[in-house]
C-alpha cells in the first residue's frame, strides 16, 4: 500500500536553507540550541554556569482561596553574593487571566514563560477558546521535561482562572508538575510557608488574603539574604488578574516592626582623659 507523502507539511528543519533558516524561520520550528563539542557535557555546563552566574535566589508564593488566587513575589536578583537587581519582575503576565511566577534562573524563567505565552495565544487562535490552566501548565512541564538534565533551573507556579474556576499548578525544571492550593517557591520559601500556613483560611476576603501574602513575603525577605526589594501582590479573579500592591520591604519593616520607645537603661557617660 502506498504511503501518503507528508514531508512537505513538516516544519523545515533541513539544512537546505543553511544559516538563512536560523534568521528567517522565526518560530516555525522549535528553538534549536547549539551544543558545545565536548566529551564532558555535564562538566562543561557546571563550569559555564559558574562563570555565567545567572541570577537566582527568590521568594514567591501563590494560594487559592474563596475569591480566587493570590500571587506574590519579591524582586531581588542575586549573582552569587552580588545583588544584580532589586527591581526584577518575578510575576510574569502570560495573558490577561493567567500569571506565572519566576524562581531559579532568571533567563530560563523569562524565556520559557514568554514561549508559553506564545503557545497559549496560538492555542486560542487554533481552538477559538482560551487555554485552561491545566493545559498551559502541561505545555510548560512537557517542554521543561524534554530539557531535563541539561541544567535549566526553573521553579514556577502557573496561576489562573478558567472555566473550572481558579487553578494553581507548580511546575519545575526537573519535570515535576503538581496541582495544589498553596505553594511557595524559592530560597525564602520556608519562611514564607511559616507565615502563610499559620494565617491561611479558605474564607478570607481579598484584602485579608493580600495582607497575608504581603506579610509572608516580607518575613521571607527579612530572614533570607537572597530575597528583597519590592513585594508585588496580584489577585486573579473571574475577570482576570489585577495588581493589588507593590511595596518596598524597607518601608514595610516599619509597619510590621514599629520602633517602640524604651527607657534608656545604661547611658553612655563621658570619661575624662587625664
Amino acid at each position, binding site marked *: 500500500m502506498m504511503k501518503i507523502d507528508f514531508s512537505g507539511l513538516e516544519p523545515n528543519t533541513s539544512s537546505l536553507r543553511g544559516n538563512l533558516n536560523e534568521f528567517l524561520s522565526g518560530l516555525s520550528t522549535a528553538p534549536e540550541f547549539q551544543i558545545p563539542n565536548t566529551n564532558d557535557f555535564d562538566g562543561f555546563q557546571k*563550569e559555564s554556569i559558574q*562563570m*555565567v552566574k*545567572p541570577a537566582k535566589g527568590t521568594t514567591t508564593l501563590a494560594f487559592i482561596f474563596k475569591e480566587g488566587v493570590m500571587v506574590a513575589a519579591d524582586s531581588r536578583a542575586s*549573582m552569587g553574593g552580588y545583588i544584580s537587581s532589586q527591581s526584577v519582575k518575578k510575576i510574569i503576565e502570560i495573558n490577561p487571566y493567567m500569571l506565572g511566577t519566576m524562581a531559579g534562573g532568571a*533567563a530560563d524563567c523569562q*524565556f520559557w514563560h514568554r514561549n508559553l505565552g506564545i503557545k497559549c495565544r496560538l492555542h486560542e487562535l487554533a481552538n477559538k477558546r482560551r487555554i485552561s490552566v491545566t493545559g498551559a501548565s502541561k505545555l510548560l512541564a512537557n517542554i521543561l521535561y524534554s530539557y531535563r538534565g*541539561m541544567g535549566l533551573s526553573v521553579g514556577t507556579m502557573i496561576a489562573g482562572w478558567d472555566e473550572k474556576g481558579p487553578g494553581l499548578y507548580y511546575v519545575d525544571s526537573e519535570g515535576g508538575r503538581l496541582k495544589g492550593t498553596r505553594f511557595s517557591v524559592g530560597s525564602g520559601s520556608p519562611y514564607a510557608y511559616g507565615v502563610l500556613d499559620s494565617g491561611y483560611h479558605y474564607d478570607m476576603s481579598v484584602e485579608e488574603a493580600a495582607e497575608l501574602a504581603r506579610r509572608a513575603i516580607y518575613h521571607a525577605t527579612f530572614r533570607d539574604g537572597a530575597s528583597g526589594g519590592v513585594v508585588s501582590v496580584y489577585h486573579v479573579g473571574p475577570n482576570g488578574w489585577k495588581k493589588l500592591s*507593590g511595596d518596598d520591604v524597607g518601608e514595610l519593616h516599619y509597619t510590621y516592626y514599629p520602633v517602640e520607645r524604651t527607657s534608656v537603661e545604661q547611658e553612655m557617660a563621658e570619661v575624662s582623659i587625664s
Partner: protein
Amino acid sequence: MTKEHANWSPYDNNGGTCVAIAGAEYCVVAADTRMSSGYNILTRDYSKIAQLADKCSMASSGFQADVRALQKHLEARHLIYQHQHNKQMSTPAMAQLLSNTLYYKRFFPYYAFNVLGGLDSQGKGCVFTYDAVGSYERVGYSSQGSGSTLIMPFLDNQLKSPSPLLLPAKDAVTPLSESEAIDLVKTCFASATERDIYTGDKLEIVILNAEGIRREYMELRKD
C-alpha cells in the same frame, strides 16, 4: 581511574567595564577601551560599543570574541528587519532580540555582559541590562563588567529612583541633564580605574539624543 579534564577553555575574559544612563530625552552609553588577558594588556584602544540602530547602542564586556560575534549577529538581524519592514528597529524590540539571541546559546553561552542603551519610540531614554544568558530588564541606569561592583553602588547613591514595581507608581525618570550625566559617567570611570586593574586607558562615551549620535573620549590612567 581518574578522568582527564580539558585544559583548553573556549572562553577568556578580556575585562573592561560598561555603563549606561537613561535620561528624559537622551541616553549615554560608555565603556573603557582597555582589552586585557590575565595580567597582560592586549591593546589600549579597543571599542566595546556597537551601534546597532540609529537610536540604539550596545556596550559589552567579557570575552570580546563572543561580543564581536554577537554584534555581527544583531547587525545582520537588524538589516533583515529593515528590508522586511522598511524602518529601523525600536530599542525595546532590539532589547528582546538580544535577549532571545543570548538565550539561544543557553547551553554554550556568549560570555558577554551587555548593556543596551537608546531612545524609545517616544524619544525617552531607555537602558536595558542583561546577564550572560539573556535575562533582561528595563532600568534607568546600569553597569556591567569588571568594574561594575565598584560603579553600581555609586550610581545607586546618585541616581536611585523609586522602583517601577511600586504601586501606586512613582515616576522614575533620572532628573539629570545630559551634561550632568556625562560628567557623572566620567567620574564613575575615573574612580573605577583607580581600583580595578582591568579598567583604564581611555573612556569612550556615546550620547544618543533627538539630534542624533555623538562620541566623546576621555583619557584614563594607563597603569
